C-alpha cells in the first residue's frame, strides 16, 4: 500500500533530473447516495485520498517506465515497472490488488419470496498478485529468462452448509495462494529457434466455517446448534514447455509446441456439528455430525501441437495444424467417517482430444484475400457419473465434429478500409453436453474505414446459431464504434461505441419429479454503449464528458447508467486542478443510485521524449 506514495515522494525529489518525465494525478473521492451491498457488488469504488495515476519514464542508458493506477484503497490497484537496456536485459513487473465483493440476495436465495433478503452466498475477497519476468540478452543467440507469479487471496463471506435434511447459511473465511517459479532459455539460429521452459507451482487453499445457532432454510424442527468445519488443501506440480520454430525455406514454416504438467493435491477435511438433523435415507433423527476425511487428486497432462505453413506460390498459403491434449484426473477420498457413516469415494476423469485443421488462403492482388478450410475434432472422455442417478457408473462421452471454414478479407483504398468476413458451419455429430456446439452456424463480418487521418469508423456483426439435443440457441451482435481523434491543436475529440446484442435460448428438459417435459426459455435483448468527448476550453482547460449505458430486456430486465464529466484546469506551471463527477445507477431485481465526486491535482514533469 505504501509503495506508490514512496514512489510519489521519490518523484518529487528526482523531478529536477533531466532524463525523468511523466505525470502524477492525486485526488480525493467522495461518495454520496446508496453505498450498500448492491453498490459494492457492482461498482465498489470507495471514499478517501487516492493516487489515481502516475506514469514516469527514466530514459537514460536504461529505459524505465513506471506506472501506478488507483492506489489508496480502491478495489483495483496496479503498479507496473518496465525496464530495459538494449541487448542487455528486459524486466517486466506487475503488482496488483483486486477486491471482489458480491452480496446480491437475488442470487440463489430460496427464501427471497418469503421476505428473507439476506444473501446465502456472499463473498468479500481481497487478492494480491505479483507477476515478474526477467530476460537477459534479448535477441541474442541464447536468451535466458526467469519468471515469478505469486497470487494470494483471503476474505470472508456466507456459504450454505448442507446438513442432512436442511441448508444453513453460515459465515465462512477462506484463503488461497499460488506460487509459480519458472525459468528457461531461448535459442535462436538463423533458420530456427527453440525455447525450453521449466516451472514449479505450489498451491494452497483453505476454508473455515464457524457458526452458532442457525434455524436453517426449512424452518422446521431441523436446526444447527454449532458448526466447526475446516478444509485444508495443499498441492504442487511441475511443468515443462518446449517450443520449436523453424523456417528452413522461405516458403515453409513450422511451429511445434509441447507442454507436460502434473499438478497434485492433498486435502484434509474436518467437520464437527451439533443440532437436530435427519438422515434422508433412513428418516432417523440424530444430533451430532462428525467427519474427518482426507482426499487427494492428481492430473498428469500432456499436450502438443504442430503447425505447418507452406507457400506453394508466393501469394498462396496452405496451413495445417494438429493439436492433441490428453489428461487423466484421479481423485480419491478414503474417508474415515464417524457419525453418520458416509461413504468413501473415487473419481476418475480421462480425456483425449485431437483437432486437425487445414486452410488454404490466397491473395488476389493487393485487395482481396480468400480462405477456405476444414476442421475436425475427435475426442473421447470418461466422465465421472452423475452419482445420485447412476451411482458408481461412469459416463463415456465423445465428440466427432467436422467443420467447414471460409472467409475473405477485402482491403480498399490503400488500406484505408478493410472488411473481413468469416463463416463456420458444422452439420452436427456427437458432443459431450447439451451446451456444446453441435449443429451450428457461425458468421462474422468485421470492418474498419479510416475516413480521414483523424476519423475512423469500425463495425462488426456476429451471429451464432446452435442446435443441440433439445436446445436451440441463437446469439447475434451488431456493434459500431467511431473515433475522431484530431491532432492535439484541435478542440474536440470523440470516441463512441454502440452495440446491440440478442441472446435467445430454448431448452427442453424433463421435470425430475413428475417426468413431465417442460421448456426453459431465456432471452437477453441488450443495448450497450459509451461515448466520451474531450473539449479544449480557453486557458488550457479540458472538459471531458460522456458516459456509458447498458439496457437489457428479456428474462432479467436491467438498466445501468454511468454518466460522467471531468474538468482539468491549469493552476500554476506544471500543476493542474481536476474535478470529476460520476453517477452510477443500477436498476434490476436490486437497485442503487450513487454519486462519486473526486477533486485533486495533477503534476506534469518534463514531457516524455
Amino acid at each position, binding site marked *: 500500500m505504501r509503495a506508490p506514495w514512496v514512489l510519489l515522494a521519490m518523484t518529487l525529489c528526482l523531478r529536477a533530473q533531466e532524463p525523468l518525465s511523466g505525470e502524477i494525478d492525486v485526488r480525493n473521492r467522495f461518495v454520496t447516495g446508496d453505498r450498500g451491498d448492491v453498490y459494492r457488488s457492482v461498482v465498489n*469504488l470507495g471514499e478517501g485520498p487516492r493516487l489515481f495515476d502516475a506514469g514516469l519514464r527514466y530514459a537514460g542508458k536504461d529505459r524505465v517506465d513506471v506506472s501506478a493506477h488507483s492506489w489508496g484503497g480502491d478495489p483495483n490497484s496496479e503498479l507496473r515497472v518496465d525496464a530495459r537496456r538494449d541487448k542487455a536485459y528486459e524486466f517486466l513487473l506487475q503488482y496488483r490488488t483486486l477486491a471482489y465483493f458480491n452480496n446480491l440476495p437475488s442470487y440463489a436465495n430460496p427464501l427471497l419470496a418469503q421476505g428473507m433478503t439476506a444473501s*446465502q452466498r456472499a463473498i468479500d475477497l481481497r487478492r494480491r498478485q505479483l507477476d515478474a519476468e526477467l530476460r537477459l540478452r534479448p535477441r541474442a543467440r541464447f536468451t535466458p529468462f526467469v519468471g515469478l507469479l505469486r497470487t494470494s487471496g483471503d476474505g470472508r463471506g456466507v456459504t450454505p452448509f448442507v446438513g442432512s435434511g436442511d441448508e444453513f447459511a453460515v459465515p465462512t473465511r477462506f484463503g488461497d495462494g499460488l506460487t509459480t517459479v519458472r525459468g528457461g532459455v531461448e535459442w535462436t539460429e538463423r533458420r530456427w529457434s527453440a525455447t525450453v521452459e521449466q516451472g514449479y507451482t505450489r498451491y494452497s487453499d483453505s476454508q473455515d466455517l464457524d457458526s452458532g445457532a442457525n434455524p436453517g432454510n426449512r424452518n422446521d424442527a431441523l436446526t444447527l446448534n454449532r458448526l466447526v468445519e475446516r478444509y485444508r488443501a495443499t498441492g504442487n506440480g511441475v511443468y515443462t514447455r518446449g517450443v520449436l520454430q523453424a523456417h528452413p525455406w522461405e516458403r515453409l514454416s513450422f511451429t511445434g*509446441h509441447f507442454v507436460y504438467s502434473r499438478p497434485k493435491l492433498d486435502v484434509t477435511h474436518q467437520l464437527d456439528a451439533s443440532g437436530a438433523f435427519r438422515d434422508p435415507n433412513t428418516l432417523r433423527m440424530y444430533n451430532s455430525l462428525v467427519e474427518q476425511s482426507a482426499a487427494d487428486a492428481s492430473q498428469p497432462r500432456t499436450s502438443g501441437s504442430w503447425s505447418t505453413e507452406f507457400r506453394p506460390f508466393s501469394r498462396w498459403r496452405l*496451413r495445417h*495444424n494438429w493439436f492433441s491434449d490428453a489428461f487423466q484426473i484421479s481423485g480419491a477420498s478414503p474417508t474415515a467417517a464417524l457419525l453418520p457413516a458416509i461413504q468413501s469415494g473415487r473419481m476418475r476423469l480421462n480425456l483425449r482430444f485431437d483437432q486437425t485443421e487445414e486452410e488454404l488462403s490466397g491473395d488476389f492482388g493487393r485487395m482481396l484475400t480468400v480462405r477456405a478450410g476444414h476442421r475436425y475434432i475427435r475426442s473421447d472422455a470418461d466422465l465421472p457419473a452423475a452419482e445420485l442417478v447412476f451411482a458408481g457408473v461412469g459416463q463415456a462421452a465423445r465428440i466427432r465434429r467436422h467443420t467447414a471454414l471460409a472467409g475473405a478479407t477485402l482491403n480498399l483504398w490503400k488500406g484505408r478500409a478493410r472488411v473481413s468476413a468469416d463463416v463456420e458451419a458444422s452439420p452436427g455429430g456427437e458432443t459431450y453436453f447439451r451446451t456444446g456446439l453441435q449443429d451450428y452456424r457461425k458468421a462474422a463480418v468485421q470492418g474498419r474505414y479510416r475516413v480521414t487521418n483523424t476519423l475512423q469508423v469500425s463495425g462488426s456483426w456476429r451471429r451464432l446459431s446452435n442446435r443441440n439435443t433439445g436446445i436451440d440457441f441463437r446469439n447475434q451482435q451488431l456493434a459500431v464504434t467511431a473515433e475522431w481523434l484530431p491532432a492535439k491543436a484541435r478542440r474536440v475529440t470523440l470516441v463512441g461505441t454502440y452495440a446491440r446484442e440478442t441472446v435467445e435460448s430454448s431448452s427442453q428438459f424433463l421435470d425430475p419429479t413428475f417426468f413431465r417435459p417442460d421448456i426453459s426459455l*431465456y432471452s437477453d435483448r441488450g443495448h450497450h454503449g459509451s461515448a466520451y468527448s474531450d473539449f479544449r476550453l480557453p486557458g488550457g482547460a479540458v472538459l471531458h464528458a460522456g458516459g456509458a449505458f447498458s439496457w437489457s430486456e428479456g428474462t432479467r430486465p436491467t438498466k445501468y447508467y454511468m454518466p460522467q464529466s471531468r474538468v482539468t484546469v491549469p493552476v500554476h506551471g506544471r500543476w493542474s486542478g481536476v474535478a470529476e463527477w460520476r453517477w452510477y445507477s443500477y436498476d434490476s431485481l436490486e437497485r442503487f443510485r450513487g454519486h462519486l465526486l473526486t477533486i485533486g491535482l495533477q503534476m506534469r514533469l518534463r514531457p516524455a521524449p
Partner: protein
Amino acid sequence: MRIEWAILLFVLQSFVLFGQGGFVGGARCAVCHAAQAETFAANRHHASTCEACHGPGLAHVEALDPEKLKVYAGSQADTVNRACLGCHAGDRRQAHRFESAHARNGVGCNGCHKVHGPDIRRQSSDALCSSCHAGVRASFERPFAHKLSQGAVHCADCHDPHGGQPASRVRTVGGHDAACMKCHVDKRGPFPFEHAPVRVQPCSTCHEPHGSANPRMLTRSNVSQLCLECHTATAGTAGGSPPAFHDLRTARYRNCTVCHSKTHGSFVNRDFLR
C-alpha cells in the same frame, strides 16, 4: 567544367553505393524524411536502419520514385507480417503468429504497432483492441463484468494478440491452466471430485467472461436454468437428471447452488454438497 566534375563525382559515388548493394544509409533518408527520422530515433527499432525494412534505397534516391522501395502502406497483411517476422520469427511470443486469428483475418503487425513513432503501440493496448472489437468492449459496460473500464484488467491479461496454441483463445499460465486461474486460484484443482464440464468445457459455457446482466457473470439469469441445460435425461449427451425429490415447484430446488455449493469441484463430496 564544374558540371563535369559533379557528374563524375555522382557516377563514382553511385558505383561505390552499388558496390554496397544499393544501400544509402539512414542519414541519406533523413534528408527528405526528416519527420519520420526524428520520431524513429525514439522507437525501439532505432538500432536498425530504414533500409532494413524498406530495402536498398539507391534506386529510390536516384529516381525519386516511391515504387523503387518496399512500401507497406496498403499492403496485404501477409506482406507486412513476413517483413516483420524476418527479424522477429525466432521470438517465442510469435510462435503461433501465422495461425492466429489476426493473421488469418488480414490484421498485419502494423495494425497495432508503429515502427516510426516513439511508442511501439499505436494506442494503449485496451483502446487498441476496442477500436476493432467494439462489441466485446461494449460487453464490459454491463453491470457484472471484469473491471476493464476501471483499469483492473486488460485485454492482454487473458488474450495473446499474437496467437496461442490452437484450440485456445486465452493465455495459459503454469503449464496448462487457462488465464482465468491466475486470479480465480480456488477453481484450479485438480479436485478429488471434479465437475466434468469445468474440466472439459471452457469457462464460457456457464459464464460470460467479458460482462453480463446476470450476477456472477452467468450466461443465464437463474441457476436452475443453467444447470438444467445439461442435467436432464437426454440420449447421447452426458449430464443425467436430478433425482425425483428435486421438486422444481419449490424455490429451494430452483436454487441448485444452495445445496451443491462446490459446483467447480469438491475436495470431499462427490455431489458437490461441501
